[in-house]
Structures are given as C-alpha cells and as structure tokens.
C-alpha cells in the first residue's frame, strides 16, 4: 500500500486574512514496509503533510495517491482508507472517546460494523500488541491511566482497525524517559513483527536516529532532504541552520571532529560513537 504525493500544496485558513501557505509543491513516495521519519523545525508542515496521507486534509493543489487511488476522487472510500492508514495523534486526551480502555479500542472496529466476536478479538489482539494486559486494563477507566498507558491505549485503538500504514505524530512528547522507552519498544516491535509501514513524526532527533531508516526533512513547507538516515545527518550544518538539533550523541562527536578527531560525519548511536572514538584514539597513538 504505497503512498505517492505529487506536487502537493496546501494553505492554512485559505480565503481569510490569516491565510498561510504551509506546504508547497511536495513530491515523495513511501513504499511498503518502510520506517520513515519526518522532521523539521516548528511550523515546517510535518503534521499538515501527514494528515494528507489519510485524507484528513485535502490538497489545494496536487495529488495524494494511496494504493493507486487518488484520495480526491469522489468514489474513494475514505472510511476504509482511514482504517488502512492509522493515525496516532500527539495528545492522547483528544483521541480517547469512550469511558473504558476496552470500549475505546473497540471504537474503530465498531465503525466498520464488524460482528461482536470479531471486535472482541481485535481488542484482545491490539491490547496484547501494545503490552496492556487484557484482564487488568479492559475495564479500566480511561482517566485512571498514566501518560504512557494512555498513549499505548491510543495506539491500540488504531491497531484494532488493522492498519497497513501507521502514522505516529509526536507520540512521545511529554513522557518521562521510562515511558518513552516503553512506547518506542512497542513501535519497534510492530514494525519488525507486523511489517507495518511506519511514518514517525518527532521532535526528538535521538528517537529518529534510533528508529528511522529514511528521513524526510521539511523546511518551510518544502522537502529539504529525503534520504537514508545516515546520509541526512551528514548535513549537520544545514540541519542546525534551519533550526533543528542533532542527536545528542552527534552534538559530542561533531565537536570532537572539530577538535581534530577522525570520526565519521554521522553517528547514530552511543555504541557506534564508542567504537569510532576508540578507533580514532588508537590510530592517533600509532601515528604518534
């Protein structure tokens, strides 16, 4: 179920004095099974772009084609599309509508008019996928959940629709480090075991570096880079110029390079950094 975007442009509050162009002339393609990170400074258009993938927004110009169907066509089945392209929003408080966890997860499947038995199975399965124990949490009040649990419930609500593509829009914001780790492990597992195409929007470069295979960098509504993760972070200077940061570990290695260390330009994990620094030091000693 590939996503194809051709010459997409979009303006916010079109036709009012507050009109503002958010996206201009975007072209990209997301293939089955990819893990794509979308990054960019605030107001670069990340969320606006992603909300076109499941037709929550309709382009002013250009086309969005999912699985060969142009979403602007009248006959496009948007309800089915939105089950295939799941979207998890940043704030769980806006996406939990029912009083209990189990009922909320059943919200999507119920909209598909599935038989009760099937809905029940989907809830069971989705809760298992995000690591919420069914007996403990099925009847649990939504408001009695912690921040991390709420986010897992929100992800389960989308998984219960059996999506082939999942969009995660800054889902770890505001969580403590332990909570972040839990959510990231759930997302990793889903991508590896279920082969769900994952589109991950985040402000955290550490998470992007650790998760994404490919990164799309947006700046002022345009695609600045679209490449493998290691390649994108080679443009460290440019990323900082547009208002992004580097992964924390690269903040250190980049300064070491400036201090004369011989290290690769893009380093995405602590292990990688340890080995590169160790190698550089050894070589230095040999040279000396």
């Amino acid at each position, binding site marked *: 179920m590939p996503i194809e975007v051709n010459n997409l442009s979009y303006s916010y509050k079109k036709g009012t004095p507050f009109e503002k162009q958010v996206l201009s002339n975007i072209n990209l393609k997301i293939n089955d099974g990819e893990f794509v990170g979308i990054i960019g400074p605030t107001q670069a258009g990340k969320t606006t772009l992603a909300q076109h993938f499941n037709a929550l927004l309709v382009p002013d110009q250009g086309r969005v084609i999912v699985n060969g169907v142009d979403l602007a066509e009248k006959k496009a089945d948007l309800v089915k599309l939105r089950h295939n392209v799941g979207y998890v929003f940043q704030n769980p408080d806006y996406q939990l509508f029912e009083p209990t966890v189990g009922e909320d997860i059943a919200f999507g499947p119920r909209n598909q008019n599935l038989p009760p038995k099937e809905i029940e199975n989907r809830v069971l399965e989705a809760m298992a996928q995000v690591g919420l124990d069914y007996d403990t949490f099925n009847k649990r009040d939504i408001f009695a959940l912690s921040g991390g649990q709420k986010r897992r419930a929100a992800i389960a609500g989308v998984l219960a629709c059996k999506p082939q593509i999942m969009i995660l829009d800054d889902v770890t914001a505001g969580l403590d480090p332990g909570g972040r780790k839990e959510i990231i492990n759930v997302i990793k597992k889903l991508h590896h075991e279920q082969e769900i195409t994952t589109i991950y929007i985040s402000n955290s470069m550490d998470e992007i570096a650790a998760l994404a295979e490919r990164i799309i960098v947006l700046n002022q509504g345009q695609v600045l880079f679209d490449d493998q993760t290691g390649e994108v972070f080679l443009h460290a200077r440019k990323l900082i110029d547009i208002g992004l*940061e580097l992964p924390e570990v690269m903040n*250190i290695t980049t300064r070491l390079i400036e201090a004369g260390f011989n290290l690769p330009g893009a380093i995405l994990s*602590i292990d990688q950094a340890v*080995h590169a620094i160790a190698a550089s030091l050894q070589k230095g000693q040999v040279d000396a």
Partner: protein
Amino acid sequence: MNPLIEVANLSYSYRAGSGNEVAALKDITMKVFEGELLAITGRNGSGKSTLARHFNCLLTPVSGSVEVDGLSVSDKCNVASIRRQVGMVFQNPDNQLVSSIVEEDIAFGPENLGLPAEEIRRRVDWALKTLNLKNLQYESLNQLSEGQKQLVAIAGVLAMKPRCIVLDEPTAHLDPRSRREVIKNALRLNREEGITIVLLTHFMEEVTHCDRMIVMDMGEIKMEGSPREVFDSEEKIINLGLDFPVSAKLAEGLRKQGIRIPRKTINAEELIKSLCQLK
C-alpha cells in the same frame, strides 16, 4: 546559603475518583536555598508537581509544614506575600496566558499586585528586555510558536520580580531548539539576576546544568545531591524511570573499552576535554 523554602515532614494526599485517599507525598523534608538552581526530577506521577505547588500556596500541607522565607504556607494571611516571592510557570503555555497580546499578558501579574501604572510599564519593559522579547511586544499570542509563548509566560512571572521561579516541566512539549532557548534563559535569570530557580523536568541533559538535584518516586525523595553525585549509579537512575545523560553513557562505554575517562563525567564539555587530553 540561606534556605528560602523549607519543607519539613510534608505529607499530602488527595481523593481519587473511586473515593480512596491516595498519598501523593510522604514525609518530605527538603530545602531550596536562596540563589541556587535546583532540579527536581522523577517519572510522571512521582509527586514532584504536587511538591512544587506547595511552594506558592497552590496547595497546603495535609501534615507537616512548608515555609517560604519564614512564612508558613498554611496561614491564609501569608498567601499574597508568598506569591509575590515565588512565581510559577506551567507546562502548557496556552493554559496560563490570560490576555491575547504579549505585553498585556506580561502586565497581568504586576496589575494584580496593585502597582502604579508607570511601575507596571517599567517592569513589563524590563521583563521584555531581559528575555529578548522586545520584538514580540505587540504580537497576538496565537501567532506565536509554543516556545515563544513559554518565554512570554516566564516574562509574565519575571515582571512580578519574584525571588524564586518554579518551572513545572516548561519544556515538555517544546521542540529541541525552543527547549534549549527556555533553559538558556532560566540559567541566565539564575546567574545574572540572582533568581532562585526550581526546575521540574524529565530531560536529563537539562538536569546536568543544575547546581543540585532531587529525584522523586512514589511521593518520596529517593536521591539528592549534585548531578555528579546522583548520576554515579546508572542502574538506580534507570530503576527510577529516568535515564542517564548521553555524555555519561558515552563516558561509561569508553571506560569499558579501556579508555581513561574520569568517573563522574556527566556533561559534554568535560568529556570532550578529557578526550582531547588523550589524543
């Protein structure tokens, strides 16, 4: 250093939806010293926010005592005077900005203090200048980014000229660049204006800039000391739902490779310095 805020044997509990009493704070004893930069950290629900809300009378102790500059927060007569001394900035800027124009919002606090118009004007101008917001003075708040809004919220508290500002996860929902900007300004207020700062945060990189830190869990203080002392044991920190700063992790990894990085290296500057000496 003199203690500005003194907490002794503080306990607090609230009634949950089911009617049960939930203990949010258990027998807390701690101090905030005049002029220091104190970080309070701990996982969501650890009680740090509940503790901080006692510092300016938003909550009053169920048992134990909290005193600000010798004034008890439990005494209603002290509320106005304590709130003048301890300001508070919250996580979501949208829920704490009252007005719709930047300078008018900053004036809200001083106006509540009943100051004369010229004095309010002076303080608003000073707060705008101190936080480099001069160019946004007349902007409409809903045209600002979240990071800018948070700086306006800090300016609004600063204009009240408090001795202490409590920042309750001010960066939780910000992008990295705005986060850095907010923290940089908090540090500056502490170093240059001598304002005591209490920073509640989940970001370990932010904690390493502080003079002292407290780690809370389940309503209790689990660790306390300088970041260097607290970040000595990775296992303990992880068990408390937190993380190790990246510099400390990297230092640890390098030590395991036999590279001589001193223990207790917790920030990038120190790590880079040690590595450059080895080169």
